[in-house]
């Protein structure tokens, strides 16, 4: 460290939640200590409450109409913009991910690069998934018949506990790419990269409320979100087996779509499309085609 | 070409005849209509054309105050502004009218003191229109008796949406008759459809025809009191209606978009719609109006910019 920087006291960042496009503290006023992998204090993160979760659902629902109604092209541009913004703050995230997950600078760098490229992957999917999972159905009758995927609505995402950044983005990006809005509960142990991601999202033309990020305990907020009647789906990636079962039972109250936790060895592997299709509904439209006229001739 | 309404005499003989006629009007494709309005919105109006359009727009404003808190003082100030919009530049045209509630008509009339600015009064239980017919007619007659030159009535959107087209038509006819003064002259009647509540473009086209058949002098988009007021698309559609009506009857009807038009840029877009849809026959305040209040100051600031070359600021126009 150079002399001049040794004499200068650094400025700490107050980590805050990201809800409805704003950065509130937890309404509960609670924080908890976040440390690096060696136990060194990093920051006090908000310990979100069920009321924060409730507010986040309201924000996500409010944003759903606009986000799901935006063109796929527009959503793709915004996801790409997120990648652009992340690239510019790469060093910050390399440091935060390194501290959070105990990775060397080069390993953390690879994780952040993969996370940026993950946004690119999903930016390209927004206007393509429809052609893959939708299409015209050749029904046996004089009908036009078309199936198209639509986002399911507000999705609660329990982010992976270990992969605090790449894992989080890998589960979040597919949810919003297709037009859902999300309430994310970060890794409890390592919430800081996720909270900083909120700052990136806020400057990427992403409408407020599309992504809402809460730090705290999945076990505390999870049950309220899993049973919430205005939440349409839940991704249990960050839940342990017991919690996952409990939440899946709660989710049955309004038949939420549930994505069960799956073992992931390597978050940088090809993600495929299943995380998108998990949160899509299929809508099929019928319309008569009829004949050209009473004469009924054809060509 | 027929030059009277007789060609349409039979369509208002019964509810079912009127319904058949209205439902036989060509449909409106919303995407296409909005695309056309947006395309005309990209016209670039510069220099001399802009100067002309700004003065024209000022002269077309029905300078409006329609608040529960309206007082004689507020109405007098508004009237003074209508006559003399920019005290620093007397070449600025007067607005077309001031638009007030019926009980303020006399105040406005006195404040205008004979200047060539009309007094328009809303009537017929504006803005909701939820009152009995005799009340609406009394409201109208009061305003006319107090000296209103123009009456801005609201249709009964409930009746229209319930499919009672003939009731809608009869109401307008009755109000039209209530606009007649003892000397046989009449206040000009503007018919407000509240397009935001009619919701569909097909409804707006149908309402336009009801209004025109019933004797409206102007058809007007909105009260300014609901979420969606004048838009380029609904105004374009109403311009198409008056264009078609004139082609079929020879009768020219005015159009007044109202509510939500706040900037010079917006106003110029509407004038382009007029220019390219119905042409110069409508390019005067006898046939086209803006229902607006804050629009005037923006026009004045733009006017100052054109004459001085400097951007103006809100402290250089009056706040009345």
């Amino acid at each position, binding site marked *: 460290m150079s002399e001049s920087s040794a004499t200068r006291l650094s400025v700490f960042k107050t980590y805050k939640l990201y809800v409805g496009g704003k950065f509130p503290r937890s309404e509960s006023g609670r924080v908890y200590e976040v440390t690096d992998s060696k136990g060194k204090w990093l920051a006090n993160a908000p310990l979100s409450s069920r009321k924060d979760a409730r507010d986040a659902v309201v924000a996500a629902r409010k944003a759903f109409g606009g986000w799901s109604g935006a063109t*796929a*092209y527009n959503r*793709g*541009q915004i996801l*790409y913009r997120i990648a652009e913004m992340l690239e510019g703050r790469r060093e910050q995230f390399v440091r935060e991910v390194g501290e959070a997950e105990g990775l060397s600078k080069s390993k953390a760098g690879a994780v952040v690069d993969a996370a940026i*490229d993950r946004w*690119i*992957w999903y*930016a*390209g*999917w*927004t*206007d*393509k998934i429809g*052609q*893959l999972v939708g299409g015209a159905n050749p029904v046996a009758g*004089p009908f*036009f018949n078309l199936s198209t995927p639509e986002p399911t609505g507000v999705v609660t995402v329990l982010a992976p506990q270990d992969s605090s950044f790449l894992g989080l983005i890998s589960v979040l990006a597919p949810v919003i790419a297709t037009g859902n809005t999300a309430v994310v509960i970060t890794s409890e142990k390592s919430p800081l990269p996720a909270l900083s991601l909120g700052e990136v999202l806020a400057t990427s033309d992403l409408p407020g409320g599309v992504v809402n990020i809460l730090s705290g305990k999945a076990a505390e907020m999870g049950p309220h979100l899993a049973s919430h009647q205005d939440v349409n789906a839940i991704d249990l990636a960050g839940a342990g087996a017991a919690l996952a079962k409990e939440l899946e039972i709660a989710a049955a109250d309004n038949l939420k779509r549930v994505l069960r936790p799956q073992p992931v060895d390597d978050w940088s592997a090809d993600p495929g*499309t299943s995380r998108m299709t998990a949160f899509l509904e299929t809508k099929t439209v019928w*319309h*008569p*085609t*009829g*004949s*050209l*006229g009473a*004469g009924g*001739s*054809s*060509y | 070409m027929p030059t009277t309404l007789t060609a349409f005499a039979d369509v208002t003989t019964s509810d079912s005849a009127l319904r058949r006629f209205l439902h036989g009007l*060509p*449909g*409106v*494709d919303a*995407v*296409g*209509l909005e*695309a*056309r309005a947006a395309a005309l919105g*990209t*016209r*670039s*109006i*510069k*220099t*001399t*054309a*802009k100067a*002309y*359009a700004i003065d*024209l727009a000022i002269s077309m404003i029905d300078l409006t105050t329609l608040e529960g808190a309206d007082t004689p003082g507020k109405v007098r100030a508004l009237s003074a502004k209508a006559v003399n919009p920019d005290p620093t530049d007397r070449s600025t045209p007067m607005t077309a009218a001031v638009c007030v509630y019926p009980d303020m008509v006399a105040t406005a009339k006195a404040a205008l003191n004979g200047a060539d600015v009309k007094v328009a009064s809303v009537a017929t239980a504006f803005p909701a229109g939820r009152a009995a017919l005799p009340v609406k007619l009394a409201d109208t007659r009061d305003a006319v008796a107090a000296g209103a030159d123009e009456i801005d009535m609201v249709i009964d959107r409930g009746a229209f949406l319930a499919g009672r087209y003939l009731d809608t038509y009869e109401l307008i006819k009755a109000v039209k008759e209530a606009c007649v003064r003892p000397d046989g002259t009449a206040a000009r009647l503007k018919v407000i459809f509240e397009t935001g509540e009619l919701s569909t473009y097909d409804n707006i086209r149908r309402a336009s025809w009801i209004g025109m058949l019933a004797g409206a002098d102007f058809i007007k988009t909105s009260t300014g009191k609901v979420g969606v007021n004048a838009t380029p698309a609904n105004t374009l559609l109403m311009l*198409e209606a008056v264009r078609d009506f004139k082609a079929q009857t020879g009768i020219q009807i005015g159009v007044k978009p109202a509510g939500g038009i706040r900037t010079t840029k917006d106003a110029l877009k509407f*004038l382009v719609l007029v*220019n*390219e849809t119905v*042409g*110069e026959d409508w*390019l005067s305040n006898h046939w086209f109006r803006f229902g607006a209040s804050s629009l005037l100051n923006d026009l004045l600031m733009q006017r100052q910019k054109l004459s001085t070359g400097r951007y103006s600021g809100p402290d250089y126009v009056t706040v009345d």
Partner: protein
Amino acid sequence: MASLFEYAPAPESRSVVDIAPSYGLFIDGEFTDAADGKVFKTVSPSSEEVLSEVAQAGAADVDRAVKAARKAFATWSALPGSERAKYLFRIARIIQERSRELAVLETLDNGKPIKETRDADLPLVAAHFFYYAGWADKLDHAGYGANPRPLGVAGQVIPWNFPLLMLAWKIAPALATGNTVVLKPAETTPLSALFFADICRQAGLPKGVVNILTGYGDAGAALVEHPDVNKVAFTGSTAVGKKIARHVAGTDKKVTLELGGKGANIVFDDAPIDQAVEGIVNGIFFNQGQVCCAGSRLLVQESIHDELLDSLKRRLSTLRLGDPLDKNTDIGAINSAEQLARITALAETGEAEGAERWSPACELPSSGYWFAPTLFTNVTQAHTVARDEIFGPVLSVLTFRTPDEAVAKANNSQYGLSAGIWTEKGSRILAVADKLRAGVIWANTFNKFDPTSPFGGYKESGFGREGGRHGLEGYLDV
């Protein structure tokens, strides 16, 4: 036009684009002279002003460019799709950033109104690159099996009507799938492709992946016939398309052809009339009618013929023809003297064959290549103007009595690129669309394009599709 409210000139600033006095060919990442030193001039069709002088490629240059593309192919095709994607995303973003400059350039070189280059061409160009960028790392999901392979070197020849957009339609899917390209723009509109070369430089695209050869038809023919070209993509006239089809016979070259059209725009009596009028105008006067999918045949139900024609004529009288750089211009210049002569000759044939010609009062500028918006009425299937592609602002109006007859007449053409249907009745739209033999059917709209939507023709309008998932197939070894 109303004289009360005469729009003052509102020209887009020419200063946003800096055109050099001369340009070379773009081969292997460098600008270079033609081997034989030949050059040709490109002019602004609206003024006949010489804009620049560009190198004229010959067979030797084609060979050099193909070699460069071949060399680049090995590394380009071996890149992970996610890396190719990022190059294409960069290109898309740079096009967005430079879109005003490119719009002005395209308007100068092509003659089309700035309103169109600004609001249609350039946004579509950027969107096309953005869309195919997204495919580069998803080819496994495109429905062509696992790990589909590129073809190799693509020889691409594009027309002058949408110079940069046709470039995008060609280059974006080719690069996304891992091919390298040699592209020849039309001789009357070489500049935007050369500016695109500069965008490739800014994006850091590896040299040789994109090569641009400006020149004439001989260069195009040499490219198409080059033995080391694996893929031929051509957009242009049906006559040239047939030549190409013959040239590639017996080779392994994969071919896609986007050729001519004589699109029928069918208006039923229950159409949304005001929007139909706009659609007819857009269908035939967009880009001065120099559009392969133009709605150049208006088929109108006889019962509303007079009413519709009145509306259409009234609307045409408001079209503003003139300086393409003026933001209020609706109709720009015809692209070249040659094209103007072709349109003029076909219009004269129309009159000679007895069709009734009408144009709005419309003053044409004294220099440049101009043709007034023109309608022909009393046209039948037997008229030349109902059969031949005019590729200009000329609309032939025919009538029909029943949907059957409309479909029969619409299909009675050697072409099958586009068609329009105007009716408020949904089942009629679908029934008629079902029977039309054309690759793109627009209902209650016209001339809509989107990178996600496949475009291409039936019959002599060509084969293969550009755009959408389908557009990948022409560049994959499947």
